[in-house]
């Protein structure tokens, strides 16, 4: 029997390792449009010690390792670009601690968004975490390591800035804790120590395997409502966001622009979510938000849309299943998007690029976006549905996607969770000393170059 397989089976048990072609097939691809690349093994550890042993084995055998959550990035970040072992982290799915008064949880890296959501619903209904619009099967840590966003991002920044502690297996197999948990039993804060968390976030598993995370929780109000502010002129989007964020009364702020249904054509909708423990609180916030936009309303430039109760249900669903459903717009099981992190004033430019790219490539498109911080920047998604059974359409969507990455860089934005190819575009444009630093850090942490190769790979 294969030596590595045997060693992996000894670590995790034979049930949880595979080199069978069906598992290799599934783990060779995600739901996006990246080229499939086959792993040699898939393994599912249950403990940090097992992860450690897998990494030690990989070092010994000089075999590549790709840590994976639910593989839902859509940009191929867990596709093993150069083969090796895919570590599916989802058996490590325990929620280890809830500190209610300190508002944080400690959880293992395989816990899904859904599981944490359900756990809090049951054990701390007045607390919530920043939930992304990913399917509930996505993992919490998967979202954090790619600098994901969620419904609390407008108020508190990127979800990765809500981390209060980390446990990581380093590329050399050492287990390392980061933040208060490195010197105390409590996982309440990354700060004020040297900011080591930055070595593992946004690196797509090239610097280690996160096994545990401390995550901040936030007040969850009993009531939640949504208003849609509609504009025609994209230039006014940043003004609206500036005014609404100034009130500090909104929870989430999102943007939508899409050609269908016909009703929406030619308009931009800004979703403003508000929460409150009482009707009074909710109405108070609503009034402040409405009045912050009164000048635009008076000038007839924008207004709040009337939402039917059914529409509201769709918008208030957590997470919104309608976003997943958009994969079936072309009855074809797929969409991809480039999530551009851009300054908000770049919205009109990005939207114009989106229209141009869609037209040039002959593809259907949609835009959704989310405000990050109090208008500090936003995620602007250039999204393209495709039909998995239609190769030509897939090819067109792929081209449109690539163009969107280029466009993002052209307007001064930074692509979020770029795939291996797009990372090269970024590195080409990045300040050379920054690139050099990335390289040196990787060499230092991962001398055997085993960790998710093909990602953030610097070839100077």
């Amino acid at each position, binding site marked *: 029997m294969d030596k590595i397989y045997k060693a992996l089976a000894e670590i995790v048990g034979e*049930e*949880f390792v*595979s080199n*069978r*072609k*069906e*598992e290799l*097939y*599934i*783990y060779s691809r*995600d*739901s996006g449009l990246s080229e499939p690349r086959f792993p040699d093994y*898939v393994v*599912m550890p249950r403990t940090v010690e097992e992860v450690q042993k897998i990494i030690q084995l990989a070092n010994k055998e000089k075999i590549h390792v790709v840590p994976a959550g*639910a*593989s*839902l990035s859509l940009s191929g970040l867990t596709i093993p670009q150069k083969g090796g072992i895919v570590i*599916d982290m*989802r*058996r490590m799915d325990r929620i280890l601690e809830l500190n209610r008064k300190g508002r944080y949880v400690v959880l293992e890296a395989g816990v*899904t*968004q*859904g*599981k944490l*959501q*359900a756990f809090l*619903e*049951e054990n701390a209904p007045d607390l919530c975490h920043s939930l992304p619009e990913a*399917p*509930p*099967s*996505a993992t919490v840590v998967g979202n954090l390591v790619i600098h994901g966003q969620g419904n609390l991002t407008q108020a508190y920044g990127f979800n990765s800035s809500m981390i209060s502690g980390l446990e990581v297996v380093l590329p050399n197999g050492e287990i390392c804790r980061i933040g208060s948990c490195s010197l105390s039993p409590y996982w309440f804060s990354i700060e004020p120590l040297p900011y080591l968390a930055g070595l593992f976030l946004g690196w797509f598993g090239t610097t280690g395997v996160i096994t545990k995370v401390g995550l901040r929780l936030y007040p969850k109000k009993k009531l939640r409502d949504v208003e849609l502010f509609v504009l025609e002129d994209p230039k006014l989007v940043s003004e609206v966001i500036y005014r609404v964020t100034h009130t500090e009364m909104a929870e989430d702020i999102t943007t939508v622009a899409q050609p269908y249904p016909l009703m929406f054509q030619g308009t931009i909708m800004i979703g403003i979510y508000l929460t409150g423990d009482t009707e009074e609180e909710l109405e108070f916030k609503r009034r402040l938000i409405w009045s912050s936009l009164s000048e635009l309303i008076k000038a007839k430039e924008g207004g709040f849309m009337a939402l039917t109760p059914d529409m509201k249900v769709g918008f208030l669903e957590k997470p919104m*299943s309608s976003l*997943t*459903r958009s*994969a*079936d717009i072309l*009855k*074809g*099981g*797929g*969409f991809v998007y480039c999530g551009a992190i851009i300054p908000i004033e770049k919205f009109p430019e990005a939207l114009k690029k989106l229209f141009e790219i869609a037209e040039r490539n002959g593809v259907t498109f949609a835009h959704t976006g989310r405000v990050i911080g109090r208008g500090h920047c936003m995620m602007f998604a250039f999204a393209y549905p495709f*039909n*998995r*059974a239609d190769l030509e359409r897939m090819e067109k969507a792929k081209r449109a996607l690539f163009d969107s990455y280029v466009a993002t860089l052209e307007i001064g934005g930074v692509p979020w969770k770029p795939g291996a190819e797009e990372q090269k575009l970024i590195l080409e444009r990045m300040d050379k000393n920054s690139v050099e630093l990335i390289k040196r850090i990787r060499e230092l942490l991962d001398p055997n170059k085993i960790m998710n190769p093909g990602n953030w790979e610097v070839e100077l």
Partner: protein
Amino acid sequence: MSMELHRCFRCGWCKLPSDFVDYNCPSYAKFRFESFSPGGRLWLIRAWLNRELTWSENFAKILFSCVACKNCAEQCKMRFKDEIVDWITSAKSLAIEKGLAPPKVRDFLENIAKHGNPWGLPRAQRASWLDLNKFEGEEDLLYIGCECAYEERGQKMAKNVIELFKIAGLSFGTLGNEEECDGNEAYMLGELGLFQELASKNTQKFKELGVKKVITISPHAFNAMKKYPNRDFEVLHFTQLLLELIQKGKLKLSELDLTVTYHDPCFLGRHNGIYSEPRKILKSIPGLKLVEMKRNKENSFCCGGGSGNFVFDLLGGSESPARLRVREALNTGAEILAVACPICKAMFEDAVKDEASDLEVKDIAEILLRSAERI
């Protein structure tokens, strides 16, 4: 095969219940490889049909470990959701047609075809334990079903149901050894020819005997008969009838100081939308406290016995769905896990033993009987 398999995005909602508390796809919960999730399975079927992948033992396991519990269809957010189970069944059908099914599955179906039951036991044994008159134009026909006819625990369940019917003064009979398999598993395994043959045999027999109403013990039989083409008889699950008897005052119930949790069988619940009758029965027993498991009704977590797995058991082991479910039942603090399906009953009784747990598995009829007998 007309399938739009490519429409699956593999987003994974199908793995979970509606409140996301835990994985709710039995084969995924057990194996944990993405390939064993509904989406993974659909993508692999597509790859197999496109000849990207060839048949293998592992693929057979992936395909046939789907228990057709319908959680995926219940939770899928796409417009094709109602077709998912049919797609998987079609793939099983194709595998069987091509002679690729694993030996255990093949034997299962052959036994049904030859002997009228999945174990290949003699037909003469079917009703040997049953002390009841053959159907002679009574109001109702009680359909016993293979799981109750041949399996000791099923037999006990059938006896409980019969006893209750007698107490209520119901006019009913059975088909004795002449009973034929209901064909539900043949249907779910994609052996449609066999299903149709069984359906037509049963329909014909019922017609000859003038059967107007069939009461099934197993939800699997209930489900199968609902699908019979040209069905001209009414079919009820025994819990529906029991509730009616209670409501009509035909069963007088005395107090039982018990804490019970109820497990929804997939073929009664998700496949046929019957959630309230069994609960109403339990709640009608004075003193009985009904507590719910986290995953209940539409979100019920399957025992792992569907689609023939109660015989060929591809999902067995320490993390089998039945054992996971027993742990969930224990968490409610209930002393009894109530079931309404002989397959669930057998699966859970085995699981309770493996878990060395004090939890008692009882069918609803047995619990009701205890309450009714004391009068």
